[in-house]
């Protein structure tokens, strides 16, 4: 099966200009290659600073990669200019690691979710509002909250709002950068199940970035492990977490108490 997204030798370097112009180059991504098939989930784990968020930003075309290719539905989106990208953007959505700052503080929850729809010009105002409200409800925000501004929500509610916004465009690829980490366990499980449900009904493809190995094993069809800007190991959860081959993976597994790998049941926990 042809992959939905295929990344080849992706490199991202940040040059930080120090004092007196002594330029220091940080290699955040170092020849990263992987692919994800449509309707599947790749869980991405790795130590802090290993380049996970950078990869997410590059895939969403919010950072320009230094070199390499990103094939999305047969097109190299890393080579597109801003105008061509506009048609692609709605299909790749990113839920930011810090949802609070990614929401416009002047907008109400309803505006946040309808704004991306507005630009698509596919729906009338009533239909847009209906869609947005239904989505908010599905993600666990009541209709009464829809007219509140983002500053009046709790951290977890903002996280849900960010997820709802990303889903509103019905993307093909959804990148979730530690999108569940500020939620409590029961809500985490609830949203994880919602994600699985949506995946089976809309053939969604996920790149799920997390520090939580159990969640990675639960949601991921495969797990990829990042270390210092490289993907050092990739495979099914049982193999990667049960018999890790790379030292970085062993470190992550050792740091997690209890047994991680629980066989994934169709239909949730």
């Amino acid at each position, binding site marked *: 099966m042809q992959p939905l997204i295929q990344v080849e030798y992706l490199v991202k370097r940040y040059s930080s200009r120090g004092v007196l112009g002594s330029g220091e180059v940080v290699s955040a991504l170092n020849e990263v290659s992987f692919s994800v098939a449509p309707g599947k989930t790749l869980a991405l784990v790795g130590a802090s600073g290993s380049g996970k968020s950078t990869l997410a930003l590059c895939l969403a075309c919010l950072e320009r990669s230094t070199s390499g290719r990103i094939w999305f539905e047969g097109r190299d989106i890393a080579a597109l200019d801003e105008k061509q990208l506009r048609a692609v953007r709605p299909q790749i959505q990113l839920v930011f690691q810090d949802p609070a700052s990614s929401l416009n503080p002047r907008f109400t929850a309803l505006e946040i979710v309808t704004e991306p729809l507005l630009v698509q010009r596919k729906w009338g105002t009533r239909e847009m509002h209906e869609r947005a409200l239904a989505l908010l409800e599905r993600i666990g925000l009541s209709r009464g909250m829809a007219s509140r501004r983002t*500053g009046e929500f709790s951290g977890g509610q903002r996280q849900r709002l960010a997820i709802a916004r990303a889903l509103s465009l019905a993307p093909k690829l959804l990148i979730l950068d530690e999108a569940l980490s500020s939620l409590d366990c029961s809500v985490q499980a609830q949203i994880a199940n919602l994600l699985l449900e949506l995946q089976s009904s809309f053939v969604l493809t996920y790149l799920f970035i997390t520090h939580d190995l159990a969640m990675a094993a639960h949601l991921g069809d495969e797990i990829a492990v990042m270390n210092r800007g490289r993907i050092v190991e990739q495979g099914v959860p049982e193999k990667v977490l049960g018999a890790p081959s790379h030292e970085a993976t062993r470190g992550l597994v050792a740091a997690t108490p209890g047994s991680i790998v629980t066989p994934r049941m169709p239909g949730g926990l």
Partner: protein
Amino acid sequence: MRFLSRRLIHAVLVLFGVSILTFLFTSLAPGDYFDEMRLNPQIAPETVVALRAQYQLDRPLPVRYARWLNSVVHGDLGYSFSYNSPVGPLLWVRARNTLFLTVTATLLSWGLALPLGVWSAERLGGLPDSLISWMMAGLMAVPDLALALGLLLFAARSGWFPTGGLASLGFESLSPINELRDLTLHMFLPVAVLVLTALPLLVRHVRAAMAGVLHAPFLRAAQGHGIPRRRLLYRYALPAAANPLISLFGFSIGALLSGSLLVEVVMSWPGIGPLLVEAILSRDLYVVVGGVLLSTLFLVVGNFVADVFLYWADPRIRAGPVAK
């Protein structure tokens, strides 16, 4: 609404204070309008004394202020000695001309500063940005007066623009289109001076405010939803950067107004400026007080408009203290 009513009370207090201060300062200056008459041998000293009594210049200051305030409340701004007519209508015609100049200059300078500043901020450090920055720095370095005189010289040499006044002779006989053309030509020079002196500061502030929000994560997120660049700039970034700019708007009205008073004198535009200068020189007390008060009123109204803007532009202020 509490926000606005508080601002309104504030405005009235400012007007009140300014009226007291102008009254005080004009009275502290030695002499009055009738002092010159005393030197005139054809006018008997008794006449001067009688005149002063008639205009109540011989009464103590607090009494004069109280009487003046009372008549102002009743819509009478006092009497001009040198024009020998009530101050109200005199000021009104002049004020209209000044307002005309100031409002046009305000709209024009903001209409230019916003796109220039946004454009600059979008290409921070690039060639267009540096070009604009240098041009603005250059403009800022030229004193207002030099700019006005330079433009006047240019107009006189080229003959493209009339160098003074508000309308040509025989203005009334022109067709409406030609009237408009005549007015535009007459306004061009004073408005150009005002806009050019106001622009550098405005562009700098717009640029700085926009540069501060252009890297906000929520803008990047919005970009990720495929929202077009123009909409990002004007619907997301500009409102986020607007609050300091709206306050600057109130301030810019003040700056343009005081600039306008100066430019009017230099370019003989029949506004409040030349009237005030004349009145101050001849110690025409009520014209001075009325003129200063009217200018203050413009300022206060300008700032109030800015406050209304602020209220209207920021949903978080509108929502009141709930949205902390």
